[in-house]
């Protein structure tokens, strides 16, 4: 979200509508941190973050005439970003089954540690845990991935998720419930496979 309080957003939007390139550049610079944060946390594999960010800004400029001010402009942009990320996630094929063989040695150790003992994962294994979380989330539907990332990884509240995604609270809760159930099944199947 733009953190520069001196930035005149309504004025800038007005100038962008009049095709002022300098205002458009200023708007991109202001919104870049917001957009890139969403892109980085929901970036599909094999997609360059800069390409995805550019696509989001293109959509923003194309639809800027449709912005009526019903929601704050950064929220409106974040919804475009979320929808674009979901479209890209949907376009990439999911693996039919998640296997131990898909994990690196570090990821397998982390998974083994979280499933078998009650101790916390050591800070040295944080990166492996991070990668593992992304691999597990990739097994979920794009919308469900989005909700779990925002809820569990970024620790957003339901109302914050509603503002970012434009979904209502009930839908967010239903998606979170469905995603957690799928994750539970995923853990159980991995545990069974490890035993066998």
């Amino acid at each position, binding site marked *: 979200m733009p953190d520069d309080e001196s930035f005149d957003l309504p004025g800038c939007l007005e100038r962008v509508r009049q*095709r002022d*390139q300098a205002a*458009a*550049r*200023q*708007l*991109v*610079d202001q919104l*870049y*941190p917001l957009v*890139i*944060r969403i892109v*980085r*946390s929901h970036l599909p594999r094999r997609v360059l973050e*800069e390409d995805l*960010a*550019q696509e989001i*800004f*293109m959509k*923003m*400029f*194309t639809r800027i005439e449709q912005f009526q001010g019903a929601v704050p402009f950064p929220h409106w942009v974040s919804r475009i970003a979320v929808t674009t990320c979901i479209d890209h996630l949907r376009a990439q094929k999911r693996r039919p089954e998640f296997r131990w063989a898909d994990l690196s040695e570090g990821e397998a150790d*982390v*998974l083994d540690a*979280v*499933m078998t003992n*009650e101790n*916390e*994962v050591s*800070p040295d*294994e*944080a*990166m492996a*845990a*991070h990668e*593992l*979380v992304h691999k*597990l989330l990739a097994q979920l539907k794009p919308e469900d991935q989005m909700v779990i990332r925002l809820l*569990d*990884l970024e*620790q957003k509240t339901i109302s914050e998720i509603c503002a970012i995604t434009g979904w209502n609270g009930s839908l967010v809760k239903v998606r979170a419930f469905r995603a*957690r159930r799928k*994750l*539970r099944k995923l*853990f*159980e199947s991995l*545990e069974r496979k490890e035993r066998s």
Partner: protein
Amino acid sequence: MNRSDKAWQRLIKAARQVSEEQESVAPYGFATRAAAHAFTAKRANPSLIEQFALRAVGVASLLAVLGVVSNYTMLAQSTPTHVADSFVTVDPASIVLGETDYE
């Protein structure tokens, strides 16, 4: 909370330790590129005349085809049945030179 939920919570807690301290300022030239692309895309929208020109070509082609189809019988009747008869087979030079009996 069952074992799987606890395992997920431990895993996610560990994953959160990875700070996403990456550069969040737009790379040099990104804003210029994005703004230029956006305005080029907007300019690419055809004008009213351009929008109608293509349709006009389609309508004109359709009218031409309909014209030929509706007048086909007339066109077919006006075509001579013996095309060879309509041509002059006598060489005009030979008439001038008196080599042919042309009456």
